């Protein structure tokens, strides 16, 4: 996969990331050989159904692994090797270089502390004086479009609407001037009009500062609209890497094609949505060989033999023996 050929400008490279949980005797596999990279100023999408391992992958970039998980492979975020890093290195990475925006702002911000405390927390932790941290927080709130930042910093999270609070979270993520932002379904918990505003905000900030962004979502239209490149994940593996432009127009992997067919189109050029047959699998319950084969109309015995190798298909890299074999 092209992720392997990482350039010097990359803010995130993930190579051969494997993760398993549970007791060593009966391990539960979570991720298997995930490869991806995010360049400076680039927005990379990570799409898939729930349970596919998108969030696990994104969190791995911060060294946030589930308790008791065994991890192997290489994850380099902003020049720091995350796997096996000591506490101090991880803390430095998290305080200075990489920020995360989570799905539900209500859960992500401590409800009993003032918004200002949330904003200045990471700065204070790395030794920025109180006054300066406060000034920077006011500045950031203004930048993310919150009116009257001086009163806002003294208010509590529950006094904000969901969209406004997500802006606060984004301001908090930007407070450290990160090289990489991990956005984990940042708009899923918001209503549609707010979604558009938050996306526009994230995109403009990325443009302004040249920050790389890993954008996790299950919304294909959204991914196609804002991402330079998109990785499609299924059952703990990346099954396709393609460009944002080709995600909807020329999906190659049967799973991607099924997803595209299943998502309602905003523009009416795709016909009625067709649900993906079967239910999503996690890696632990996936069949041998290609994990999608039990839901794939084009699968045959060859798909069961081994996990398909990645091959080129047009502009995309696909882990499938017969890409584009399924009708859209």
């Amino acid at each position, binding site marked *: 996969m092209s992720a392997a050929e990482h350039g010097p400008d990359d803010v995130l490279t993930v190579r051969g990331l494997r993760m398993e949980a549970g007791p060593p005797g009966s391990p539960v596999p979570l991720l298997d050989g995930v490869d991806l990279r995010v360049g400076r100023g680039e927005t990379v999408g990570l799409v898939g159904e729930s349970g596919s391992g998108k969030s696990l992958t994104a*969190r791995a970039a911060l060294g946030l692994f589930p308790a008791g998980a065994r991890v192997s492979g290489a994850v380099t975020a902003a020049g720091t090797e995350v796997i096996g890093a000591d506490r101090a290195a991880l803390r430095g990475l998290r305080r200075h270089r990489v920020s995360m925006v989570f799905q539900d702002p209500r859960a*992500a911000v401590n409800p009993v*502390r003032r918004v200002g405390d949330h904003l200045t927390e990471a700065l204070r932790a790395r030794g920025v004086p109180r006054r300066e941290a406060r000034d920077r927080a006011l500045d950031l709130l203004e930048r993310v479009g919150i009116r009257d930042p001086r009163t806002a910093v003294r208010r509590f999270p*529950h006094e904000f609407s969901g969209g406004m609070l997500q802006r606060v979270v984004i301001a908090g993520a930007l407070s*450290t001037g990160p090289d990489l932002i991990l956005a984990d379904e940042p708009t899923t918990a918001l209503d549609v009009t707010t979604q558009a505003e938050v996306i526009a905000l994230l995109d403009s900030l990325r443009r302004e500062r040249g920050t790389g962004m890993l954008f996790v979502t299950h919304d294909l239209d959204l991914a196609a609209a804002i991402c330079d490149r998109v990785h499609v994940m299924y059952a703990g593996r990346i099954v396709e890497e393609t460009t944002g432009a080709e995600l909807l127009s020329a999906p190659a992997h049967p799973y991607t094609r099924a997803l595209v067919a299943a998502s309602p189109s905003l523009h009416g050029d795709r016909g009625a949505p067709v649900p993906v047959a079967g239910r999503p699998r996690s890696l632990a319950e996936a069949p041998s060989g290609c994990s999608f084969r039990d839901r794939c109309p084009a699968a045959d015995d060859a798909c069961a033999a081994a996990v398909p190798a990645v091959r080129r298909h047009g502009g995309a890299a696909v882990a499938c023996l017969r890409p584009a074999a399924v009708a859209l």
Partner: protein
Amino acid sequence: MPRALLTWIGGRLLGAAATVVAASVLIYGCLRLVPGDPVLALTAGRRLSPEQIEAVRQASGLDQSLVRGYLDWMGGALRLDLGLSLHYRTEVSSLLADRVAVSVPLILYSAVLAVLLGCTLALVSAVRGGAVDRAASVLAAVATATPPFVAAVVLLSVFAVGLGWFPATGAGSGFWDRWWHLTLPATAMAVAAFGVLARVGAAAFSEELGRDHVTVARGRGIGGFALLRDHVVRNALAPLVTVIGVLTATLFVGTAVVETAFGLEGVGSLLVGSVSRRDLPVVQGVSLVAVVVFVAVNTLVDLALPLIDPRVRTGAVR
């Protein structure tokens, strides 16, 4: 301050006052429940002349109607006049004032022990989990079930008699001496409260540790002490403070047992002695003070909750 908040605070204070009034009716009414002539209960076992009996009858308001007698008693209580002790022949309030010098340090000492140790154990068990958590929860369950007189017996056998580290009786004089003398009694009293706090605290802390905002804070490079202080302990404060409020009653009543066990001259042993001497004015006075303290503490906790959790503030005002 917003008007709604003031109304809410007023309501709380009014409710507390109503509870105290109702409780005081109950405390005073007990005297009238006595089978036969109540004055005989008051004078039980004491050889008194008919004139003295009449004096007691008048002093206790027994020559008046229930309502009149209650109003007199309560009116006196508001002026800190709780009547005369039948045994000591002195003011109940001055008896109390003498004894407070032992009981208040004892209660505070014991509360500090219970809260510090209970919360520390809770935090360690929530953070470490696994075997540490299981061992801590067994310890907490046993502590919860340990009555102060059992704890007193064990502490006396081990630390006073066996090792001889602490004195078995007396309250000592001067700060350090008192502190040294009160260590075993305060520990005996704190054991059960420590157990309850350790259990409630461990549940509250581990719930908070599992919340998303803790993960978010970790992901922002907040760790160690700051993470626990700002995101775990801070958020678990509301349930903890509520439990601490309820536990003050345990501690207050615990003084009765512990002061008897360790031969301390405090309010608790005054209550016990007065109950067995059937010195009703003292019993009523101490009971009233206990109820007032308990209601006051819990009302303060109620009023403090909005300060601790801003979400309650909005909810309360609505």
